[in-house]
């Protein structure tokens, strides 16, 4: 059934179709519509689940983890400050090996506080042991949540997943979503029946135990890594089954016009759509360019990425985040993974754009590709990273700063 809905509603639909038992929550813009929608459905009897507003995201994630450790299927959602507030518990949940699925609606981090998206929030959770699936469209959000439960609850994985999408550009944007039938979803995603973590009177179990022996600590934490590696294989199986049942591909690395590409943009999340449009424009100008979108970020799909970047002259990575003192996080991740690969792109360039939701225009994408070509063709020294910041941005900033300091002393 096709419906027009926001990204947030698509997320709520994902949880509803997964027939989750428990939704601990705490509101934060731009995630609120997800929990509002779910609470409404529960109150109207459309969904059978406990909806529990906690005192904070830290508690929210704790309750999510402990409920999952009891045997319930759990969904929760947060964003930016909330994700950081819950940070300690991210590592706990992966250590408990509980298959919670959490949505993160990306939003730039304070200070200064802002509402619009970038990816510093979600990328900070990179090392926590949560799987990460990043979405470009509302459809992908719904699909990814179903896929996430299926993978998380697989015995070979048993790890929590974050499904990520951009605030505003996706959370509040309505587009067409094909909502699968519940019966079909049930066939794809059977009831969760844990065998390793549960709380019940007939079988006492100690969970979340301290491990003071360092060999054993290494073992358990490394098992989380092993489970992540398994998740790569499981993802492949699940995406095939999903595609067969629902007719939608949901590849870990998606490519766009890459067949004969010599250059490529590499991106994640909703601005990939804008990147695709820029690719078309550049193609019209006879630039052989394509786009690579990372959908699965943890586990990192290295092999797929090697395949898709093989022999490129240049790869321009657009990072909507900044690690001060280093640059773009995805640039670091991709370059390090490709370093030992014979057929790696000749040049990998790094651009920071879209911080705090700032637009990335076609010209900026083209600038990135042109710069990459120049570095490749003229062997010029590479500057890393380059901030995509326009004359217009500079002017706006100046005007506002002037106001902040008393008066329109325009020096220009």
């Amino acid at each position, binding site marked *: 059934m096709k419906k027009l809905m926001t990204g947030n509603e698509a997320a709520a639909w994902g949880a509803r179709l997964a027939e989750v038992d428990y939704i601990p929550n705490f509101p934060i813009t731009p995630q609120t519509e997800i929990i509002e929608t779910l609470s409404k459905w529960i109150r109207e009897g459309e969904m059978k689940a406990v909806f529990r507003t906690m005192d904070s995201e830290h508690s929210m994630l704790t309750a999510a983890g402990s409920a999952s450790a009891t045997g319930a299927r759990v969904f929760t959602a947060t964003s930016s400050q909330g994700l950081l507030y819950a940070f300690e518990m991210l590592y706990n949940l992966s250590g408990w090996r509980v298959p919670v699925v959490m949505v993160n609606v990306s939003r730039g981090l304070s200070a200064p506080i802002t509402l619009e998206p970038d990816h510093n929030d979600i990328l900070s959770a990179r090392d926590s042991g949560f799987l990460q699936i990043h979405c470009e469209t509302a459809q992908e959000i719904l699909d990814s949540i179903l896929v996430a439960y299926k993978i998380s609850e697989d015995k070979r994985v048993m790890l929590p997943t974050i499904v990520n999408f951009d605030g505003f550009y996706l959370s509040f944007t309505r587009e067409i979503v094909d909502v699968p039938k519940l019966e079909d979803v049930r066939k794809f995603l059977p009831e969760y029946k844990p065998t390793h*973590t549960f709380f019940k009177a007939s079988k006492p*179990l100690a969970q979340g135990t301290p491990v003071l022996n360092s060999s054993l600590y290494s073992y358990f934490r490394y098992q989380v890594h092993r489970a992540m590696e398994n998740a790569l294989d499981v993802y492949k199986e699940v995406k095939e089954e999903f595609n067969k049942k629902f007719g939608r591909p949901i590849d870990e690395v998606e490519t766009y016009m890459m067949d004969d590409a010599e250059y490529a943009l590499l991106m994640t999340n909703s601005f990939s759509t804008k990147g695709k449009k820029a690719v078309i424009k550049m193609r019209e100008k006879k630039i052989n360019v394509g786009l690579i979108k990372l959908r699965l970020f943890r586990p990192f799909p290295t092999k797929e990425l090697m395949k898709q970047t093989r022999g490129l002259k240049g790869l321009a990575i657009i990072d909507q985040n900044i690690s001060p003192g280093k640059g773009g996080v995805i640039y670091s991740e991709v370059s390090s993974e490709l370093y030992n690969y014979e057929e790696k792109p000749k040049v990998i360039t790094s651009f920071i754009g879209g911080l705090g939701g700032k637009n990335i225009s076609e010209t900026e994408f083209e600038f990135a590709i042109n710069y990459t070509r120049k570095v490749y063709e003229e062997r010029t020294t590479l500057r890393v990273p380059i901030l995509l910041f326009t004359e217009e941005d500079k002017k706006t900033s100046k005007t506002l700063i002037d106001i902040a300091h008393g008066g329109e002393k325009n020096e220009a």
Partner: protein
Amino acid sequence: MIKVRFHGRGGQGMKTSSRILGTAAFLSGFFVQDFPIYGAERRGAPVVAFTIISKEPILERGYIFDPNILLISDETLLLDKQTDPTKGMSKESIVFINSNKNEDYFKEKIGAKVIVEDLTKIALEVLGRPILSTLIAGVAAKLVGIEQKYLEEAVKEELEQIGANEEMIRKNILAATIGYNKVQEVKIEQTESLEPEVKVVEVEYNDPEISTPVISFVANSYLKKTGTWRVFKPIIKYQKCKSCRLCYVYCPESAIKWENNFPVIDYENCKGCLICVQECPLKAIEIVREGE
């Protein structure tokens, strides 16, 4: 380089011993490292501390696997398989044991150079409490050949740090010198590092039942047999016991079972806190020093 390893129980002051030795060696002009193993220090529970003394800069971190000198604060620690205090010791190592037994008793069992003194007795006489930190530091300082004046200075410095008053410092300097004079300086054989050679292996994925840190065999902590923590042993004199249940109820460790209307102490697990002795209204529980 001399590597010294201290084994003791929480509350006996082994961390302080290792620091006093460290400070004394530092004052004597050596390169020094000292380090306690921390985290779960509990009164009565086994603890380990280390001091390394060297003429050259020290390229070591963490656990000392091959000590030249081992100081064991009480013999019951030797029974503790988990700590295994003599682990990594070589024939050349010197092992000091605080005990009221004689050296021959341990020589066979340990197979190294053993020195035995009853420091607990001295501690009770000099300090009024079975705290061994300064006595053992004194022994260690002499064994490694540190001058007495540096030992005294170090005792003062370390005890001031932990807030001891003048009287305590004076008594502890006395204790340290008694320990110092109980033993002779030894010639330390310089041995090759014994850190064991290892083989790096693959770690496969295991099913979550195994690879998640959960415990399904509940209430299994009795397997740890914390009876080895005991320095003093409570013994019930049944002819005096009137089955009032107080000892049973107050034992923090569930180490007293209630059987046939009488309390029965589970010595494999009793930690020797002596609450039962203190609380028995009929004084029906007596104390003996462990190993007597």
